[in-house]
């Protein structure tokens, strides 16, 4: 199944036409919790037609600050109200010194941060009474690293036992910005934990820097990396097309969804032929 991020920028057009045909929708709970009126009506319309996944922005799982348990309880209620199938968050921090920053900052790749983040993931899973998936974020600089990004992610997965949200575009962006081979990175990941995949476009703003904008179409090298990841994974997991800015015609988004489905279908079919 391939879904789309349900964005207010195209919600109305999407719900009034059949051009875009995702298998599910994903929203950030922060944008919908406690919301009524027009947008609640739109969300309710969407929920009648599509399953929902949640992808959080503000839980700040990697923050030195205490977890915001009141907010987490609201997320729990929202999961229950909407029947959301997956709740994922970012392996990053968005709050520090008791101040929200409204963006995703990189956690230092250190042993103590592995322990800290893992404990918090377990705390979140305990409160929600469900497993969460953690996304590898794009980052533009490391901070005081003691280990590689790959070692850090695998250590968190091993210690917390949570699922992995494999954002293939982020791996591509990070491999470019930090000079590593994205295929080797995927080879090194604890791939069995992958339960969900994100795909998106990005923007190269300098010879040595790509920004994860979610504002462009997916480029071929990222499709190729996706194909590689699916062949490596050898299981059918939900895939999300993220498009947050610079929204094109819905037909273009549908074309990307179909492209993702074809790649996944072909990659999984070839394996089943091979094992038949």
């Amino acid at each position, binding site marked *: 199944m391939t879904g789309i991020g349900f964005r207010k920028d195209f919600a109305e057009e999407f719900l009034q036409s059949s051009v875009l045909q995702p298998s599910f929708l994903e929203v950030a709970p922060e944008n919908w919790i*406690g919301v*009524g*009126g027009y947008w609640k009506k739109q969300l309710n319309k969407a929920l009648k037609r599509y399953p929902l996944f949640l992808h959080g922005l*503000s839980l700040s799982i990697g923050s030195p600050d205490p977890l915001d348990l009141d907010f987490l309880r609201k997320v729990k209620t929202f999961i229950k109200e909407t029947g959301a199938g997956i709740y994922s968050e970012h392996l990053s921090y968005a709050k520090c010194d008791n*101040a*929200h920053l409204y*963006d995703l900052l990189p956690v230092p790749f250190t042993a103590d941060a592995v322990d800290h983040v893992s404990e918090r993931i377990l705390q979140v899973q305990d409160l929600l009474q469900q497993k969460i998936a953690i996304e590898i974020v794009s980052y533009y*600089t490391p*901070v005081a690293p003691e280990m590689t990004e790959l070692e850090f992610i695998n250590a968190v997965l091993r210690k917390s036992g949570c699922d992995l949200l494999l954002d293939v575009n982020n791996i591509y962006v990070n491999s470019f910005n930090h000079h590593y081979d994205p295929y080797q990175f995927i080879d090194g990941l604890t791939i069995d934990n992958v339960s969900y995949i994100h795909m998106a476009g990005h923007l190269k703003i300098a010879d*040595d820097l790509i920004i994860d904008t979610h504002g462009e179409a997916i480029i071929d090298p990222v499709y190729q990396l996706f194909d590689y990841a699916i062949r490596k994974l050898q299981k059918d997991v939900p895939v999300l097309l993220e498009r947050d800015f610079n929204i094109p015609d819905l037909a273009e988004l549908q074309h990307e969804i179909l492209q993702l489905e074809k790649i996944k279908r072909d990659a999984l079919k070839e394996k089943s032929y091979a094992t038949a």
Partner: protein
Amino acid sequence: MQLLETTRNHQSELAKYCRTGQYNPIQGVNERHVGRYRQLVINVVDDTLRSAFPLTCNLLSPDEWTKEVNDFFSSHACQSPQVWSMPKEFWAYVKDQQPAIVKKYPFLDELLWLEWLEVEMFMMEDKTAGHTPAGNLKKDKIVINPEHHLQYFTYPVHLKNAQQITKTDKGHYFLVLHREPVTGKVKFTNLSPFLARMVELLAEKPRTIKELIKKTSREIGIVPDQQLAEDVLHFLENALAGGLIHGFVNK
């Protein structure tokens, strides 16, 4: 293992840089690229505030706007995990801290509050009130739309272009905002003190037009006449058509 003080400090330093734009070297950080984080963070904050406060943004010069946004974000610890509700904290910051710009625009906190109210009313959770849409305005008990907010201002921020408001405009202004039930749009209605009190009484409990006129007139100290009755009926007819009045008490 607890998070080490050094790790905590590194995270705090990066966060401080994002909030203030003042960079102190952090171990292992790529100084060519770390600026992206400050840009990403301040862009989100600036865009969110511009979107919530278009009138204020238009009133202030670009330098004034940038200064207020930067001062706010660097000195105030934003508490809301929901970025759409963060602008309310900007309003509270201006109201509480009274930055120098308030001397130039003494109505600034009221303008910000007006703009925030529109956002809040549009986004707020649904409220319901038992009622029937059919009824007689002249006889039946009237039910006000629970999705309304009565507001008093000392400057006519809802009536005049902000650039034309002066200290001589200071006075008593009332308005009611309500969320239109079908479209969800927020509507503004300017009120006389009489109508404001009437709306307040309706918010307490459903009342008939006769009860409203009698009680409000007594409290305000006027003798109701035929003209007043006609004016009130006209207001209520418009309010019913526009969704401020929901309908009538179920019989």
